[in-house]
């Protein structure tokens, strides 16, 4: 066998169910219940409007920098919809839609974006990690958590989100390798939104797909239309099932698009063509789902309008709540909290100095 081809175990696939006009491939349509589908729709719409509202607040100087989610709602909702409440979610920093689905209060997110550490607290019982900012650094956490799930003989899983940019970082690589070695029930969901700040996808890596990076670990990988909530749902469902069954991790690449600025500190006109954005606008995940739902006669324009109104109220109320929370926040000496379980003497001295208005050595 001097010069022979090596057969690879896994065949990569691309999955798409809803086309751009909202037509579903009937052989693949998961035929979800109306209730389930409307829940998807509501979460995606709420996420979109909340995002837009935050952008306005930021432009008015009421909150600080944040990373808009616009365009990626299907990739997030389709994925997390497969999780049970006590499964684990390990987000990066752009997972507003996922956080909403999981139950993070809007006011908490606003509080965080208004610059208060208190906003970072995830409600008890909600197994979500706080926002992780260093790109790719959260990915290994989903391996450890998933290991814990198996170690304690539960069938819980851990799902982690990250971007196309994150796949260039070492922690991505180390984490996927570890997950395969220990067969952890981890679902690695890459939201390939085509940009890492100003770096386009094809300058991030030369692999034709992100999904094929799974091959480096002998891991199954799949690429899906990330603006198609049904495709994302089905691909992640398979991955979650595999994980629950003890068959280890999966890499799911959701091909989507960042429709907004990278963060509110960013000016994309410096580096990208509006035309590309417009092209992607035609593949908008929410519109696509709406067409599908209308076609299935599960949703009418009046329903949407009603939902929009309700959402408007919810979002405004959240900001009201946040403002009240801010007013009620105790004095700034909370900055000395949560460093350790207890406060060591030197830190207590510093706190006392701070409270007393004088530096303590």
């Amino acid at each position, binding site marked *: 066998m001097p010069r022979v081809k090596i057969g690879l175990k896994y065949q990569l696939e691309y999955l798409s169910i809803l086309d751009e006009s909202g037509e579903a491939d009937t052989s693949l349509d998961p035929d979800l219940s109306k209730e389930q589908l409307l829940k998807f729709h509501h979460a995606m719409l709420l996420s979109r409007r909340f995002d837009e509202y935050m952008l306005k607040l930021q432009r008015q100087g009421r909150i*600080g*920098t944040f990373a808009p989610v616009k365009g990626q709602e299907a990739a997030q909702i389709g994925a997390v919809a497969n999780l049970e409440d006590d499964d684990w979610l390990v987000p990066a*920093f752009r997972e507003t839609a996922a956080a909403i689905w999981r139950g993070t209060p809007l006011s908490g997110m606003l509080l*965080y974006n*208004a*610059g*208060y*550490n208190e*906003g*970072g607290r995830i409600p008890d019982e909600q197994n979500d990690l706080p*926002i992780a*900012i*260093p*790109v*790719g*650094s959260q990915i290994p956490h989903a391996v450890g958590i998933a290991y814990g799930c198996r170690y304690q003989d539960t069938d819980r899983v851990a799902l982690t989100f990250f971007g196309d*940019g*994150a796949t*260039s*970082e*070492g922690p991505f690589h180390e984490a996927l390798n570890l997950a395969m070695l220990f067969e952890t029930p981890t679902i690695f969901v890459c939201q390939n939104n085509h940009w*890492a*700040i*100003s*770096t386009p996808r094809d*300058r*991030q*890596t030369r692999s034709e797909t992100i999904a094929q990076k799974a091959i480096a670990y002998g891991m199954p990988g799949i690429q899906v239309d990330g603006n198609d909530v049904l495709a994302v749902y089905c691909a992640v469902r398979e991955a979650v099932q595999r994980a629950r069954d003890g068959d280890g991790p999966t890499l799911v690449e959701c091909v989507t698009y960042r429709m907004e600025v990278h963060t509110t*500190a*960013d000016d994309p006109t*410096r*580096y990208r063509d509006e035309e590309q954005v417009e092209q992607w606008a035609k593949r908008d995940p929410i519109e696509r789902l709406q067409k599908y739902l209308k076609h299935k006669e599960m949703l009418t324009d009046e329903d949407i309008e009603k939902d929009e109104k309700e959402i408007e109220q919810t979002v405004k109320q959240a900001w009201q709540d946040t403002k009240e929370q801010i007013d009620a926040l105790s004095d*700034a000496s909370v*900055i*000395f909290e949560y*460093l350790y379980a207890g406060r060591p003497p*030197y*830190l207590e001295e*510093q706190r006392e100095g*701070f409270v007393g208005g*004088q*530096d303590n*050595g």
Partner: protein
Amino acid sequence: MAELTMSEALNLALREAMDGDDDIITLGEDVGVNGGVFRITDGLLDRFGDKRVLDTPVAETGIAGMAIGLAIYGLKPVCEIQFSGFSYMAFNQIEAHASRMRWRSRGRFHVPIVFRMPFGAGVHALEHHSESKETIYAHIPGLKMVIPSGPRNARALLISAIRDPDPVIFFEHKALYRAFREEVPDEEETLPLGESRTAREGTDLTIVAYGAMLHRALEAAEKLAKEDGAEAEVIDLISLSPLDDSRFTESVRRTGRMVVVHEAHRSFGPAAEIITRLMEKSFYYLEAPVERITGYDIQVPYFAREQDYLPSVERILDGCRRALNT
């Protein structure tokens, strides 16, 4: 003479340096098309092309490691690490290779790299975007560690750092990027690394500071003069490594009192080294315990409370008064 902000002055320095030397290559995340998230590399791609201005993927270890290779080959890379808080992703490359290549190869190779990194709090940024952990770099033999305090010295120091034959960690304070303008001479200017400067003369007390805190120290000194009639000498360290201990030592021999200000965490922070050097060199001149006014030993709070973390002019002033009154 042009009136430039620090970000413009840094941009100028890069342009000047690269104009004069084809061996200089700039690389980092978003440094090309986007001109850097703080626009420090703005216009460089157009001027120098994509062989000299490299937009990299999000990969700090790779960026630093590739830069080390470039430098070994004989080029002079200037890396932008997007924020100092992400430099830890590349820490192994900096500690294990950049700082040691000259030493490990007994001078056969050396690595003239500048690692530029925005650092510091005060601009309402996100977590990890407000760090001041210069101590970590200052402690590592083989590295230099430079922190400019304004447009003019930033430009001169960056040119010197690029020409320096050894790796330089170059911390740029985000709050200074656009804080004020300063005359920057048209002709090229450099400043030696490892030399501090006297930012204000005084006779009663010595304040040592650097970066953005220098300006708070100067403000405190003015207040002190006005309100207490005491004249503080203010030393701008500029280089943490090599640390120039002669200027502040000499100053304290005259003033007998010292306050050290930085926004890095207090414990095991730069002030400790400065105070110890002083004690080693001028123990008997000290008339009062040295005060250190620093960031606390906590993570920098999110932006609504970041000012609570930072040494305020008031805190510095209090420190000066304690030093004067004991």
